[in-house]
C-alpha cells in the first residue's frame, strides 16, 4: 500500500543533528526530507501532515528541526515513528511508554494505542482507514504542537477527508469524501464531487501548489507548506 514516490531533491530540507547522533538516523531523516505541510480546514481544525516514512518527535525549541515538535518537557529527539511494509514501529530515544508499558526496543504500533513521552505527553495513535497506511497522532494531554494544530497525520499514500469516523480528517458537515494524495512527489486532491482548487474547478484530480485553497460543496480548506 505504501506509495513509491521518488525523493524530491528540490524540496528536501537540511536537518541538523546534535553531535554524536548515529549516521543511520541521519540517513533515515534525509529520506523524510520531503516538506511537511499544514491543512487548515475551516470549521474542522488544523493538521500537520508529515511526509516520509520516518518522523521524529521531540521538543519544540528554536533550532530543533524535528518533524513533530511538541511544547513539552521532553528530549529534543525523544522518539521516532517508522513506517515499513509491515506497519508502524515506535523507536524510543528516551523514556517512552506504550499503553503504559515502558519500551526500550523498537515496538510495533497498533491502532488505538497510547504513546507516552517522558511520562507527560500522551499521544493517541490511530490508523483509522482500513485501506490506507496513513496514521494520525492526536495529543491527548494538554500539550501543544508547533505549529498549533489539532493532530498530526503521517501521510503514507492518501489522506481521506470525510464525514465517516474512518476518515483521517473527520469533518461531520461533509456529505461525501475528498482524498488528498501524493502524485509524483506532488500533492493532489480529488473529491466525489467537483472541487475548486485556487479558483479553478476540477472534476479530475487536481495538483496543489505550495499554498492552495481548496473548496467543495460543503467544505473548504487551505494547504500551507512549511
Amino acid at each position, binding site marked *: 500500500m505504501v506509495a513509491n514516490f521518488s525523493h524530491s531533491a528540490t524540496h528536501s530540507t537540511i536537518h541538523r543533528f546534535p553531535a554524536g547522533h548515529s549516521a543511520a538516523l541521519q540517513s533515515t531523516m534525509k529520506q523524510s526530507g520531503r516538506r511537511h505541510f499544514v491543512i487548515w480546514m475551516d470549521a474542522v481544525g*488544523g493538521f500537520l501532515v508529515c511526509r516520509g516514512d520516518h518522523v521524529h518527535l521531540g521538543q519544540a525549541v528554536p533550532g530543533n528541526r524535528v518533524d513533530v515538535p511538541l511544547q513539552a518537557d521532553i528530549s529534543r529527539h525523544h522518539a521516532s515513528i517508522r513506517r515499513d511494509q509491515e506497519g508502524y514501529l515506535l523507536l524510543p530515544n528516551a523514556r517512552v511508554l506504550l499503553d503504559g508499558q515502558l519500551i526500550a526496543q523498537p515496538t510495533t504500533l497498533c491502532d488505538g494505542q497510547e504513546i507516552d513521552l517522558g511520562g507527560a505527553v500522551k499521544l493517541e495513535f490511530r490508523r483509522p482507514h482500513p485501506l490506507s497506511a496513513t496514521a494520525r497522532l492526536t495529543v491527548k494531554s494538554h500539550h501543544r504542537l508547533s505549529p498549533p494544530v*489539532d493532530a498530526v497525520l503521517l501521510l503514507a499514500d492518501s489522506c481521506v477527508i470525510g464525514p465517516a469516523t474512518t476518515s483521517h480528517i473527520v469533518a461531520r458537515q461533509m456529505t461525501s469524501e475528498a482524498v488528498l494524495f501524493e502524485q509524483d512527489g506532488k500533492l493532489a486532491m480529488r473529491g466525489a464531487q467537483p472541487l475548486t482548487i485556487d479558483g479553478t474547478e476540477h472534476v479530475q484530480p487536481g495538483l496543489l501548489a505550495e499554498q*492552495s*485553497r481548496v473548496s467543495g460543496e460543503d467544505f*473548504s480548506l*487551505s494547504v500551507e507548506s512549511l
Partner: protein
Amino acid sequence: MNPHATEQDDRDATGEPVVAGQRRGEVPSRFTYASGSAPLPGYTIKRGVGQGGFGEVYYAVSDGGKEVALKLIRRSLDVELRGVVQCLNLKHPHLLDLYDIRTDERDDHWVVMEFVNGDSLEDLISDHPEGMPVGEATAWMQGIAAGVGYLHECGIVHRDLKPGNIFSDRGLVKVGDYGLSKFISCSRRSGQTESVGTVHYMAPEIANGRYGKEIDVYALGVMLYEMLTGHVPFEGESVGEVLMKHLTATPDVSRLSEPYRSIVAKALAKDPAARYASAAELVTALPPVDPDNSRVHAAARVAARAIPVAESVAGRSPEVEAASAAAASPGATASPGATGKAHEVAGSGGDDGRGEPIAEFVNDTFSQLGHAWNNNVNTPAKILIIVLGVWLLPAISGPLIGALVTFGVIYLFYRILWQIFVWLSDGPAEPRGPSPASSAHVVEAKTVADAKCAAPVGGSARRVHRRKWHPPALRALPIKSPRERFTELLGSLALGAVVCLVTCLALSMLLGKFAVDRFAWLSIVSIAGTWGVLIPTKFWEGTGGEASLRRFWMLVMGLGLGAIAFAAQEVLLVELPHMFEVEPFFVADPQSSGATHSLLSYLTYFGFLMLIMRWWKLADPLRNSRVGLWRTAVCVTTAIGLYLFWPFPQDWGMLAQPWGFMAAAAIAVATQLASPWLDPQKSEPAKSVAASSA
C-alpha cells in the same frame, strides 16, 4: 496576503442572520477569508472556526504569535457594538476573554477574543447521543451558571446560550459569544423584534420581544435537558414548528429522573416568573457532584477569588451569595444566606449572636486567650495552670457562680431587648451578609482556622461548626491498620495511667491532705475514667459518627466508672472528706441519706459526667493543642456544676467535693496528654489542612 482568499464577492450571500443556527449535520456556509489572509492588520487568519448569528469566527495568529479568535461582525448595529464595548473588560474565569474591538479598511468590525482550542459542549453532546453522565452535566451547568450569573450581575443578558457557544478549555468551562448580548433594561425589553439566538434554546416570551434574564435560565434548562438526554426538548422539521412548540407544548420530562425532572420543568416554565430567579438558583437545585469525577469543572478556587471583585463591582444580593457559595464549594449544597448565618461557630462556648457588641467582645477575648494558650504556653505550664485552677476554683466558685448567674440574667434581658431593636431596624430574619466592618467575622474565620476544620473556601461556616470532624481533615489523617491502632491504644493507655498517677498525686497533695488510701481511690477512678474515654475514642478515630450514639456509649462508660468508684471506696474503705464550705444549691432532705443510695449516687454522678461532656473531643487527634485550657476547664466546671446542682446530701462519701471533680480534672488532663495529637506545625497532613482552611 493570500492571493487565493475569496474577497468581497460572496459576502452578501452569507450576510443573512442564521436564525436557526448551526445544528449538527448542517452544511456551514462559506467563510469569507481563507487561511493566510489578513483582513485585519496585525492578524493572519489560519482557518475558519464557525459561524453564528452575528458573523464568522476565525482562528488567527497575531504578528507577535498570539493565538486569537477573530469574530467578524457584519450586521454591526450601534446597539450591538455598544454591547460588546460594555463587555470588553469583564473578567470571569467562566467567560471567554474579549481582547479588543477593531475596525478594518472596509469598516467591518472585528472582535478580537480568546481562542479556546477545546471541545464545545455541542461536540460533547454529540459524543453522548443518549445523554452524558449526570456528574459531567452538573459540572458543565455549574460553570455555565457561574459565567452567566456574572453577566446577569453586570446587567447583561446573554440571549444566545447554546452548546455551540460553550467550551471546555482544559476542563474549565467557558461561556462565549456574550459580547453580542443585550442589556437588561426596561426600555429595551421590547425594543427589537429581530430574532437572535438559536431557535432550540429560545424562550417563548422572545416571541413577544421580551429579553429578560429569564430567557437565559430557559436556555440553561434546555441545555440541561439536552445534556442528560442527548436531545433538545422541542424538535421539529422547521423553525416555525420548533417555535410553536416552545410557545405551547409541554416538554416531555419523563425521560429524566428526579430531581432533574422537576428542575428542568421549572426552568422551562412558559411563564418567565415561574422559572428559577437566577442561574445560580437553578444550579443550587442540582444535586452536588464530586468534582474529581468529571472532566470539566467549575473554577472553584479561581471563582472564589474572583467573586469578591464581582461583588464590589455589582453590589451583593442573596443570589450572588448563593452563587459564590455554589461556585466555591461544588460539593456543598449552598442555600441563600447560608454564609450570613455563620455565627454559631464564633466562640467555643457561647451561643451569642454576631453583631451584638458584648457578645463580640466576649468572643474576641476568649478567642485571643485561646490563641495565646495554644501558641504561647508550653505543656508543663498548662498543667500547672490547670492544677492551680482546680485548686482555686472551689474556693471562689460560690461568689463566682452567683456573679455569673446574675450577669447571665441581666444579659438575657439585654439580649432580648437588643434583638427586638435589631429586628425593628433591619426587619426580622434577614440573612446578614458578612460586613467587612464586623470584627466578629474575622474572629469567626480565625476560630475556624484554629480549629483546623478545613472549610471549603467560601463555604458555609455553619456546616463546619456542626461537623468539626471535617472530611478533608479526616482524609488528612494517616490511615492506620487495626494493628497500628491497637499498638497506639496500648501506648495511650499506659501513658494515660502514668499521667493519672502523677496528676492525682499532685491534686491530692494540693487539695486532699495527702493520704495513701485517698490517693489510691482517686488514681483508680481516674485511670478507669481515662481508659474509658481512650478505648471507645480509638474506635471512633477518623470517623465522623453520630454524637448521640457516642454519648450513649459514654453514658455506659460513666455508669461503669461509677460502679468502679463505688466498689473502690467499699474495698479500700476510704473516707473522702468534705474539704470546702461550698454547699449544693438544691440540697434534698438530709434525713434521707443512707448506704443503699450510695451506689445510685455514684452511678448517677459519673453517668451524667460522661454523658454531658463530649469527652471524645479530648482525644481528637485534630484538636487545637495537646492540652486545651478551655476543654479542661469545661470538664472541671461540669463536674463542679453536677455536684452543685445535684440534690444529694453532702455526706455521701466522695460526692462531697472536691473528689469528684479532682477525678474529672485528672481524666481530662490524662486523656489529652495520652491520646495522639497531630501538631499542625510538624505534621504534614495537619499542616496541609490548616493551609487549605486559611
